[in-house]
């Protein structure tokens, strides 16, 4: 049986992706090489093939030969370098294994090229040409067929909810029509960090937030975005939109996950081709807002020296930078920033589907050296982050390097410092 995906489809997909910004970016690159210095895959390996702008060469070739007169002329004269199946096969590891779509190169490029956005575009071509990595194909397939990239079913979620409810006495609402907020979860939270669900329940109870989970749309992650296939991404976004609209919620809360936020907040409406009937907020945005409005009260703080790891998708792609810092101010007395933080933070090495791509494991562990160096510079006892994937990758990397630094979610940290009922009455 032959694949429905081939190089012709790949090239066609690349043609579909090129827009005015892409053309401006390629026209502007002077090969200064600074994007390499912004990419942990280059800085930690010294391999020039990991230079971000080099990774998007397939897209550049299509742009030049299809979207410039001069390039068309070169193509007619046989001077243009074509994009072939072999080329895409060679580029596949560059596009998937050595890029976390962290967007740091896009912040550094002196001519202002959004290189990571172009890598995302190249992934569309890679998928259409059947050059996606096995790990991401598996995740996408599970997401579409089972409902979660990690294969988590509703049954598993309900079991976790059952545990939490019996342990804490809290109620986790499901399918409450007309609730204000629909909370989404990432599979990783359901399986690895159920304490996030517990934290939400505690916080929302105190802040008196009307919320619910949906049995039809609980999965926030979007493997389609990671593998780089709009068609798959659209289907996954549509499930959330349908779930939210069915329950008539006003808001959808993106959980502590990076790409889930950009997928539902920024990409989603474009994928389905219309604006939502609800608003999307990241949990940190909501917590910040609750705190600002006085609905969320904390007492005491963690005295250990800690730092915050900005999830790339939240800070550089999502625009959530000030909120975690304001929240930390309330619950951490010894918060210290890494030398490069906020929108210049370094990626954990596992974003953009890299952590789901087993082939890239060795490289990912190697480039974790960047984060290790950052941590050694400030010597902290605890790390806080706001993305389950970052958290898992960080934990693995720290363990690999024998660094005994616990990683906790910010929502969890907040929930640990909620003012108790008794205090509230004072």
């Amino acid at each position, binding site marked *: 049986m*032959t*694949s*429905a*995906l081939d190089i012709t489809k790949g090239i*066609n997909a690349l043609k*579909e992706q*090129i827009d005015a910004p892409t053309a401006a970016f390629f026209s502007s690159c002077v090969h200064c090489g600074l994007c390499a210095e912004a990419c942990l895959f280059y800085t930690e390996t010294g391999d020039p093939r990991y230079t971000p702008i080099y990774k998007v060469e397939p897209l550049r070739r299509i742009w030049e030969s299809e*979207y410039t007169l001069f390039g068309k002329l070169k193509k007619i004269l046989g001077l243009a370098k074509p994009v072939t199946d072999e080329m895409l096969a060679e580029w596949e590891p560059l596009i998937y294994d050595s890029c976390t779509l962290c967007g740091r190169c896009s912040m550094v490029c002196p001519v202002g090229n959004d290189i990571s956005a172009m890598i995302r575009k190249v992934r569309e071509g890679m998928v259409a040409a059947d050059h996606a990595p096995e790990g991401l194909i598996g995740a*996408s397939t599970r997401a579409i067929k089972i409902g979660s990239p990690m294969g988590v079913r509703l049954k598993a979620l309900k079991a976790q909810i059952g545990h939490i409810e019996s342990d804490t006495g809290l109620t986790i609402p499901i399918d409450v029509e007309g609730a204000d907020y629909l909370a989404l979860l990432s599979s990783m939270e359901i399986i690895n960090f159920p304490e996030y669900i517990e934290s939400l329940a505690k916080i929302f109870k105190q802040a008196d937030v009307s919320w619910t989970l949906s049995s039809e749309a609980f999965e926030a992650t979007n493997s389609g975005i990671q593998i780089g296939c709009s068609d*798959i991404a659209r289907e996954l976004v549509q499930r959330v939109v349908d779930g939210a609209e069915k329950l008539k919620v006003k808001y959808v809360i993106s959980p502590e996950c990076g790409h889930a936020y950009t997928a539902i907040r920024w990409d989603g409406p474009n994928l389905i081709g219309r604006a939502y009937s609800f608003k999307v907020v990241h949990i940190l945005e909501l917590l910040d807002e609750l705190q600002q409005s006085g609905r969320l009260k904390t007492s005491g703080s963690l005295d250990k020296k800690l730092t915050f790891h900005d999830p790339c998708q939240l800070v550089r792609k999502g625009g959530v930078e000030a909120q975690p810092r304001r929240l930390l101010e309330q619950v951490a007395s010894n918060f210290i920033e890494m030398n490069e933080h906020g929108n210049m933070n370094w990626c954990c090495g596992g974003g953009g589907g890299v952590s789901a791509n087993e082939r890239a494991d060795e490289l990912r562990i190697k480039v974790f050296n960047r984060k290790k160096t950052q941590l050694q510079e400030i010597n902290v006892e605890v790390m806080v982050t706001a993305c389950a994937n970052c958290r898992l990758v960080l934990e693995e990397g720290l363990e690999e390097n024998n660094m005994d630094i616990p990683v906790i979610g910010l929502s969890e940290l907040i929930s640990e410092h909620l003012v108790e009922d008794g205090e509230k009455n004072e």
Partner: protein
Amino acid sequence: MNKKTLFELLQQQGITRRGFLKYCTALTSLMALPPAMIPTVAKALESARRPSVIWLSFQECTGCTESLTRSHSPTVEGLIFDYISLDYHHTLQAASGAAAEHAREQAMKDNYGKYLVVVDGSIPLADPGYSTIAGISNLDMLNETVAGAAAVIAVGTCSAYGGLPHAAPNPTGAVSVSSLIKDKPVINVPGCPPIPTVITGVLAHYLTFGSIPELDELGRPKVFYGQSIHDRCYRRPFYDKGLFAETFDDEGAKKGWCLYRLGCKGPMTYNACATLKWNQQTSWPVESGHGCLGCSEPNFWDAGSFYQALSIPDGDYARAAGYAAAAGVAVGAAAGFVHQKTKSTAVAQHSEISVDDFSLNKD
């Protein structure tokens, strides 16, 4: 033939030996020779015999002759000029008609192989009728006269490079002497007009050494044309400091600042005006407040406005840019349309991808 030597002639005119030696010193330095050469120059000039000179005037304005003859008081340069045996010069000679032409033919016959031909004015090639002398076309007269000459001195920019008659659209097909005469030495003494001292200097060199001076690639004697106006200009320090006159009556002009912005062609003009000056060293164009026109350079009439800085292109660039912009917009819009079509075709050809399409999911 006049057998008197130059020195005898000068004495006759009341020039003392002291005055003569002073002239020799000036001449030696003018010709960029070491001071040790002064006695040689003096000796050569003392004993030099009057050479026969035939002066041909073609398409010219007589300005060059005026330059040479318009000395208010007798000068040594003037006397040098007087000293030569000017056997034919139809503006200056008394004879006319057949007698004049006879004088020329006689001089050629008597001094065959030894006489000098001085030419001012360009030669029309489009139609000989544009300029004739005694019914003889300029071209014929030039060829005929030069045949027995020792050397040719092209005096003035018209004869050296074509000058004004050669300026676009050059209706008469005017050309320079050097473009026609290939078998005799041709010394170009350009300028519109040339500095009198330069003309006599060239003659003096020929008299002194019996040979022609070293020439540059444009056939000009290097001693007089080796340096540009700009390099020897007394206003050069203002150029270096960035101080320029911007109009002919602004503060800068009054302070004597550089005239580059007013179109001075000094940087590209090779001549001795800045050092020798004009009218008994009274002044020269830049000193009088006007930029150099570049009159001793080929095509100076065609090198754009005299009042436009040298760095400004002299074509109709505004028109070129206008057409180019219109063409750019038309082609760019068409290209943009084609690219949009390429993209919309790609979008139309998109077939929705499902996870089942991956070959990995088909095994």
